[in-house]
Protein backbone atom coordinates (compact mmCIF):
# COMPACT_ATOMS: atom_id res chain seq x y z
CA UNK A 1 0.00 0.00 0.00
CA UNK A 2 0.92 3.64 -0.14
CA UNK A 3 1.48 3.99 3.58
CA UNK A 4 1.30 2.24 6.93
CA UNK A 5 -2.24 1.22 7.81
CA UNK A 6 -3.64 0.23 11.17
CA UNK A 7 -6.88 -1.43 12.13
CA UNK A 8 -9.13 -0.78 13.85
CA UNK A 9 -8.90 2.98 14.06
CA UNK A 10 -10.79 2.89 17.35
CA UNK A 11 -11.28 0.11 19.86
CA UNK A 12 -13.40 0.29 22.98
CA UNK A 13 -13.20 -2.64 25.34
CA UNK A 14 -13.94 -3.53 28.91
CA UNK A 15 -11.40 -4.04 31.64
CA UNK A 16 -10.09 -7.60 31.62
CA UNK A 17 -10.79 -8.27 27.95
CA UNK A 18 -8.29 -9.31 25.28
CA UNK A 19 -7.57 -7.08 22.25
CA UNK A 20 -5.60 -7.36 19.05
CA UNK A 21 -4.33 -4.40 17.07
CA UNK A 22 -3.13 -4.85 13.51
CA UNK A 23 -0.46 -3.06 11.52
CA UNK A 24 0.20 -3.26 7.77
CA UNK A 25 3.62 -1.72 7.06
CA UNK A 26 4.82 -0.24 3.80
CA UNK A 27 5.58 -3.02 1.35
CA UNK A 28 9.23 -3.99 1.46
CA UNK A 29 9.98 -2.40 4.81
CA UNK A 30 11.74 -4.96 6.97
CA UNK A 31 11.75 -2.93 10.18
CA UNK A 32 8.50 -2.48 12.12
CA UNK A 33 7.93 -0.64 15.40
CA UNK A 34 5.13 -0.33 17.88
CA UNK A 35 4.76 2.76 20.04
CA UNK A 36 2.18 3.91 22.55
CA UNK A 37 1.17 7.54 22.87
CA UNK A 38 -0.77 9.05 25.75
CA UNK A 39 -2.43 12.44 25.56
CA UNK A 40 0.09 15.27 25.61
CA UNK A 41 3.04 12.91 25.40
CA UNK A 42 5.36 11.74 22.67
CA UNK A 43 5.28 8.18 21.36
CA UNK A 44 6.78 5.65 23.77
CA UNK A 45 8.65 2.69 22.29
CA UNK A 46 7.18 -0.77 22.85
CA UNK A 47 8.80 -3.27 20.47
CA UNK A 48 10.86 -3.41 17.27
CA UNK A 49 10.88 -6.16 14.65
CA UNK A 50 13.54 -6.80 12.05
CA UNK A 51 11.93 -9.25 9.68
CA UNK A 52 9.97 -11.83 11.63
CA UNK A 53 11.90 -11.61 14.87
CA UNK A 54 11.56 -9.17 17.72
CA UNK A 55 14.93 -7.43 17.78
CA UNK A 56 14.07 -5.36 20.83
CA UNK A 57 11.06 -5.83 23.09
CA UNK A 58 12.44 -3.89 26.03
CA UNK A 59 9.62 -1.35 25.86
CA UNK A 60 6.79 -3.78 26.53
CA UNK A 61 5.44 -2.74 29.96
CA UNK A 62 4.64 -6.24 31.22
CA UNK A 63 3.81 -9.76 30.10
CA UNK A 64 0.23 -8.83 29.23
CA UNK A 65 1.63 -7.27 26.06
CA UNK A 66 2.83 -9.41 23.18
CA UNK A 67 3.44 -8.79 19.48
CA UNK A 68 4.01 -11.04 16.50
CA UNK A 69 5.05 -10.65 12.90
CA UNK A 70 4.94 -14.21 11.56
CA UNK A 71 5.66 -13.56 7.88
CA UNK A 72 7.76 -10.45 8.19
CA UNK A 73 5.03 -8.13 7.01
CA UNK A 74 1.80 -7.64 8.98
CA UNK A 75 2.17 -7.36 12.74
CA UNK A 76 -0.34 -7.83 15.54
CA UNK A 77 -0.04 -6.30 19.00
CA UNK A 78 -1.90 -8.36 21.57
CA UNK A 79 -2.96 -7.14 24.98
CA UNK A 80 -4.34 -9.57 27.53
CA UNK A 81 -6.46 -8.70 30.57
CA UNK A 82 -6.68 -5.06 29.57
CA UNK A 83 -6.53 -2.40 32.25
CA UNK A 84 -7.79 1.19 32.20
CA UNK A 85 -4.17 2.35 32.18
CA UNK A 86 -3.70 0.68 28.80
CA UNK A 87 -5.91 3.34 27.20
CA UNK A 88 -3.81 5.24 24.67
CA UNK A 89 -3.14 5.57 20.95
CA UNK A 90 -1.05 2.68 19.67
CA UNK A 91 1.14 3.69 16.76
CA UNK A 92 2.88 1.44 14.29
CA UNK A 93 5.80 2.56 12.13
CA UNK A 94 7.96 0.92 9.50
CA UNK A 95 11.26 1.72 7.87
CA UNK A 96 13.48 0.29 5.20
CA UNK A 97 16.60 -1.54 6.22
CA UNK A 98 19.92 -0.16 5.09
CA UNK A 99 22.94 -2.34 5.67
CA UNK A 100 24.72 -1.04 8.75
CA UNK A 101 22.44 1.97 8.91
CA UNK A 102 20.60 3.18 11.95
CA UNK A 103 19.42 6.51 10.62
CA UNK A 104 16.31 5.52 8.72
CA UNK A 105 13.26 7.70 8.95
CA UNK A 106 10.19 5.95 10.23
CA UNK A 107 6.82 6.06 8.52
CA UNK A 108 3.95 6.04 10.97
CA UNK A 109 0.42 4.80 10.63
CA UNK A 110 -2.57 6.80 11.91
CA UNK A 111 -2.75 4.76 15.09
CA UNK A 112 -5.41 2.79 16.92
CA UNK A 113 -7.12 4.60 19.76
CA UNK A 114 -7.72 2.05 22.52
CA UNK A 115 -10.17 2.87 25.29
CA UNK A 116 -10.51 0.48 28.21
CA UNK A 117 -13.65 1.09 30.24
Amino acid at each position, binding site marked *: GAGVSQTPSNKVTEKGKYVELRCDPISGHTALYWYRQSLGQGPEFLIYFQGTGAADDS*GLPNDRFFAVRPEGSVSTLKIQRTERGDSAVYLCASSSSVAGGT*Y*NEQFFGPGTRLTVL
Partner: protein
Amino acid sequence: SQKIEQNSEALNIQEGKTATLTCNYTNYSPAYLQWYRQDPGRGPVFLLLIRENEKEKRKERLKVTFDTTLKQSLFHITASQPADSATYLCARGPTGRRALTFGSGTRLQVQP
Protein backbone atom coordinates in the same frame (compact mmCIF):
# COMPACT_ATOMS: atom_id res chain seq x y z
CA SER B 1 18.19 6.84 31.04
CA GLN B 2 18.40 8.93 27.90
CA LYS B 3 15.78 11.66 27.86
CA ILE B 4 14.52 14.19 25.38
CA GLU B 5 13.04 17.39 26.76
CA GLN B 6 10.87 19.78 24.80
CA ASN B 7 9.02 22.84 25.97
CA SER B 8 5.53 21.64 26.81
CA GLU B 9 4.08 25.14 26.54
CA ALA B 10 2.54 25.99 23.19
CA LEU B 11 4.38 28.44 20.99
CA ASN B 12 2.22 31.14 19.42
CA ILE B 13 3.68 33.29 16.66
CA GLN B 14 2.48 35.57 13.92
CA GLU B 15 2.39 34.47 10.30
CA GLY B 16 5.58 35.32 8.45
CA LYS B 17 7.78 35.16 11.56
CA THR B 18 10.37 32.50 12.31
CA ALA B 19 9.36 29.81 14.76
CA THR B 20 12.12 28.30 16.90
CA LEU B 21 11.55 25.13 18.87
CA THR B 22 14.02 23.68 21.37
CA CYS B 23 14.99 20.09 22.08
CA ASN B 24 17.37 19.25 24.92
CA TYR B 25 18.82 15.83 25.62
CA THR B 26 20.49 14.27 28.63
CA ASN B 27 23.64 12.21 29.06
CA TYR B 28 25.70 11.36 26.02
CA SER B 29 25.03 12.79 22.59
CA PRO B 30 22.83 10.64 20.38
CA ALA B 31 24.13 9.49 17.03
CA TYR B 32 21.36 11.50 15.45
CA LEU B 33 18.22 13.46 16.14
CA GLN B 34 15.05 13.39 14.12
CA TRP B 35 12.23 15.90 13.95
CA TYR B 36 8.64 14.91 13.22
CA ARG B 37 5.41 16.80 12.74
CA GLN B 38 2.17 15.48 14.20
CA ASP B 39 -1.32 16.74 13.45
CA PRO B 40 -4.28 15.88 15.69
CA GLY B 41 -5.53 12.34 15.14
CA ARG B 42 -2.62 11.42 12.90
CA GLY B 43 0.70 9.67 13.23
CA PRO B 44 3.97 11.61 13.22
CA VAL B 45 5.47 12.56 9.87
CA PHE B 46 9.23 12.70 9.40
CA LEU B 47 10.73 16.11 8.61
CA LEU B 48 14.47 16.17 9.12
CA LEU B 49 17.35 14.14 10.49
CA ILE B 50 20.64 15.59 11.74
CA ARG B 51 23.68 13.55 12.66
CA GLU B 52 25.96 14.15 15.62
CA ASN B 53 28.77 15.40 13.39
CA GLU B 54 26.55 17.86 11.53
CA LYS B 55 25.97 21.31 12.93
CA GLU B 56 23.12 22.34 10.65
CA LYS B 57 20.69 20.84 8.17
CA ARG B 58 18.22 22.64 5.93
CA LYS B 59 15.18 21.66 3.92
CA GLU B 60 13.12 24.34 2.24
CA ARG B 61 11.84 26.60 5.07
CA LEU B 62 13.12 24.26 7.77
CA LYS B 63 16.45 24.37 9.54
CA VAL B 64 17.77 22.15 12.31
CA THR B 65 20.91 22.63 14.38
CA PHE B 66 22.75 20.21 16.66
CA ASP B 67 24.93 21.62 19.46
CA THR B 68 26.71 18.84 21.35
CA THR B 69 28.17 21.32 23.85
CA LEU B 70 24.76 22.63 24.89
CA LYS B 71 23.18 19.18 24.36
CA GLN B 72 20.54 20.90 22.32
CA SER B 73 18.87 20.92 18.92
CA LEU B 74 16.97 23.90 17.56
CA PHE B 75 14.26 23.57 14.91
CA HIS B 76 13.44 26.66 12.88
CA ILE B 77 10.57 27.33 10.51
CA THR B 78 11.10 30.52 8.54
CA ALA B 79 8.28 32.54 6.97
CA SER B 80 5.81 30.55 9.05
CA GLN B 81 2.28 29.92 7.79
CA PRO B 82 -0.94 28.94 9.56
CA ALA B 83 -0.59 25.53 7.86
CA ASP B 84 2.57 25.00 9.92
CA SER B 85 0.43 24.81 13.05
CA ALA B 86 0.98 21.36 14.55
CA THR B 87 2.89 19.54 17.27
CA TYR B 88 6.58 19.05 16.57
CA LEU B 89 8.37 16.10 18.07
CA CYS B 90 12.08 15.65 18.61
CA ALA B 91 13.49 12.13 18.85
CA ARG B 92 16.90 10.63 19.53
CA GLY B 93 18.25 7.35 18.24
CA PRO B 94 21.45 5.96 19.72
CA THR B 95 23.65 3.84 17.50
CA GLY B 96 22.80 0.17 17.48
CA ARG B 97 19.20 0.53 18.45
CA ARG B 98 16.62 1.53 15.93
CA ALA B 99 13.84 2.58 18.27
CA LEU B 100 13.45 6.28 18.78
CA THR B 101 13.09 8.06 22.12
CA PHE B 102 10.67 10.92 21.67
CA GLY B 103 10.17 14.12 23.55
CA SER B 104 6.66 15.17 24.54
CA GLY B 105 6.47 17.62 21.65
CA THR B 106 5.85 21.33 21.36
CA ARG B 107 2.63 22.65 19.89
CA LEU B 108 3.08 25.48 17.43
CA GLN B 109 0.23 27.83 16.59
CA VAL B 110 0.76 30.29 13.75
CA GLN B 111 -1.73 33.14 13.78
CA PRO B 112 -2.81 34.66 10.44
